[in-house]
């Protein structure tokens, strides 16, 4: 059993009849993910290359036994689709859509928490458990099956690190792209918790970037709650922070949100931080082999 998705995942894709949704949904199916349904209101009864389309997610849960929903609908309507998924009876919702307004995500985030539904994303590349299931747009060929869990705000940076691990002869239990939006369903802390109790994971790589204070909070949490070794990489030491108009943001988070502040917070709690993706991968491999 891997975290979030595995052989038992039964996937329903909202937006499977769209161009992006069908391309990636079918790629996920080709990988071996059980794609049981697509959802497009008004297109119930049709199929996409043999996968049945239903009018609602709830119907796909009832009729096809879907337990995981992937959201691939345009940003304007995406929050409604996520809300629909939360109410439908699925356990997990993975939202790939980019550009959803924050004010739409605020109530949606709380609805998911209230219902006990795990929400990943939005604006994320999805989740891959190598050898088992792939839900989203992560190119599976750059990852091997193995003992390292990866949780990341960034897509391509994750591919970079995963590939470095693969070249070093190591693989991954699960790769989780949590997304970089201001409001995301699952944070570093949520995924670190899952990896910590996952028997298939021995070490966790956490990939962060500038903005917000999720990495700083994760640092505290790792020191207090996580028993497995964590290696981190933070991107954005030279990125322009963006001119801030008000300073109210720093007041509430107590952090400047810079890469340096994040690195210092993590190192203060004993988390090793690689200077580059290459170095982070090297530290991870070294640490794993010394366990």
């Amino acid at each position, binding site marked *: 059993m891997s975290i979030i998705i595995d052989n038992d995942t039964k996937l329903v894709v909202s937006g499977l009849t769209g161009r992006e949704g069908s391309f990636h949904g079918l790629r996920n199916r080709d990988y071996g993910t059980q794609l049981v349904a697509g959802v497009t209101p008004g297109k119930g009864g049709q199929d996409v290359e043999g996968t049945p389309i239903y009018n609602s997610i709830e119907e796909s849960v009832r009729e096809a036994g879907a337990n995981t929903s992937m959201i691939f609908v345009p940003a304007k309507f995406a929050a409604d689709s996520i809300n629909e998924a939360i109410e439908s009876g699925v356990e997990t919702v993975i939202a790939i859509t*980019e550009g959803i307004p*924050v004010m739409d995500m605020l109530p949606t985030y709380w609805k998911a928490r209230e219902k006990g539904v795990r929400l990943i994303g939005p*604006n994320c590349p999805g989740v891959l458990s190598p050898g088992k299931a792939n839900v989203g747009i992560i190119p599976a060929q750059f990852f091997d099956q193995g003992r390292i869990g990866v949780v990341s705000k960034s897509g391509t940076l994750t591919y970079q690190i995963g590939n470095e691990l693969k070249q070093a002869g190591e693989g991954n239990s699960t790769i989780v792209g949590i997304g*970089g939006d201001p409001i995301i369903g699952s944070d570093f802390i949520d995924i670190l918790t899952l990896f910590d109790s996952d028997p298939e994971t021995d070490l966790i790589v956490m990939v962060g970037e*500038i903005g917000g204070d999720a990495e700083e909070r994760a640092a505290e949490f790792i020191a207090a709650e996580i028993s497995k070794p964590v290696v981190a990489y933070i*991107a*954005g030491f030279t990125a322009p922070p963006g001119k801030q108009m008000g300073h109210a943001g720093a*007041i509430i988070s107590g952090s400047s949100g810079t890469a340096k502040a994040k690195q210092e917070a993590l190192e203060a709690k004993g988390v090793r931080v690689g200077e*580059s993706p290459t170095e982070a991968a090297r530290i991870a491999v070294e640490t794993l082999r010394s366990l």
Partner: protein
Amino acid sequence: MAKSTFGYAFRSRPTPNSSKVMDLLEYQGKELFARHGLPVPKGVHASTADAAVDASELLGYPVAVKAQVLIGGRGKAGGIKIAKDSTEAHEYAGDIIGMDIVGPHGEGPFKVHELWVEAGSEIESEFYASVILDRSAKQLMVMLSRMGGMDVEAIAASDPDALVKQHVDPLAGLDEDEAREIVTRAKIPGEVSGQVASVLIQLVEVAQAEDATLIEVNPLIVNADGEVILLDAKVTIDGNSLFRHPELEELPESADQDPQEAMAKERGLTYVSLDGNIGILGNGAGLCMSTLDVVAQAGGRPANFLDAGGGSKAEAIIDALEVITSNPEVTAILFNIFGGITRCDEVARGIIEATNKIGLELPLVVRLDGTNSEEGLALLADAGLSNLHHEATMLGAAKKVVELAGN
């Protein structure tokens, strides 16, 4: 309200995680407040000294002549003046237009192109009020202090208890009892407590209705007649929400915009100018930021952040190279691509086409990994571009481009 009064010159600000935000100028923020029935002083927009005098005559003296720039600390920098008559209004407006204003933390300089001329207010007391998205708590947060007029950081530092913070229920909003409690905790004088509580409730409604992730009012004043008035406005709008705010989307960009940033925006690329000489293109915000970092670690100075995005096609690569090379400071270029959805052969095709199209002679270091990288590298090798250097790893590529860029 007529759209024209909303004027021009907001500035959209790309953020590294590719979500965009839009900062409004003070008067644009006040127009937003006014539309929602919040009390703001009467004012008129002006971009010349003569227009400022006309505005002042209309409003009646005294007037506040205020520089419209997207940075705090305007008053201290001389960007806000009170004029008692037309001579002063003309003089101050003339002084302020064209002024360069540097922010309290060294931001800018921001050149003043426009003014907001506002009816003068007699200030009895100054408070601070804000509504901000608290990303960690996943809720809006209201902040209120009776110590207004100074930087919120200074309030928090000098007397943390004077800054009252309260989260807002994301499903219900701020109700009257909660607003009154915030006002009481902030020790706002009883005679204006009702007005301040209403302002807080309305500010939360504005944030929700207008997709504002930050609204800061500093100062929120009480005037000589005991009326509570919003004397300043800093508003940041979530760029993802613009599809439902066409009136904001139509605002043209600030005249001050960086030429490369403007060009990139037209072409739908995420670009941020930096002050170095190494042009950088990556795919995906995270990998792109990481590329800037490794170049800096190798001793180089990046000229830009350019995220070509997922699934970049040859045309996007050509656009990106044109934007990068339009910056005269650039002496070498680094392409760092890890193809997932992006196909490396498409990227290679774009590089070859662009090199031929724009006659690119600058050294170009390319690292192509991921989907179809072998096909991409073969295409590059066949093209035989003399300025092109291929490196197998990200760190190797960073080192190479630094070597080729010189200082």
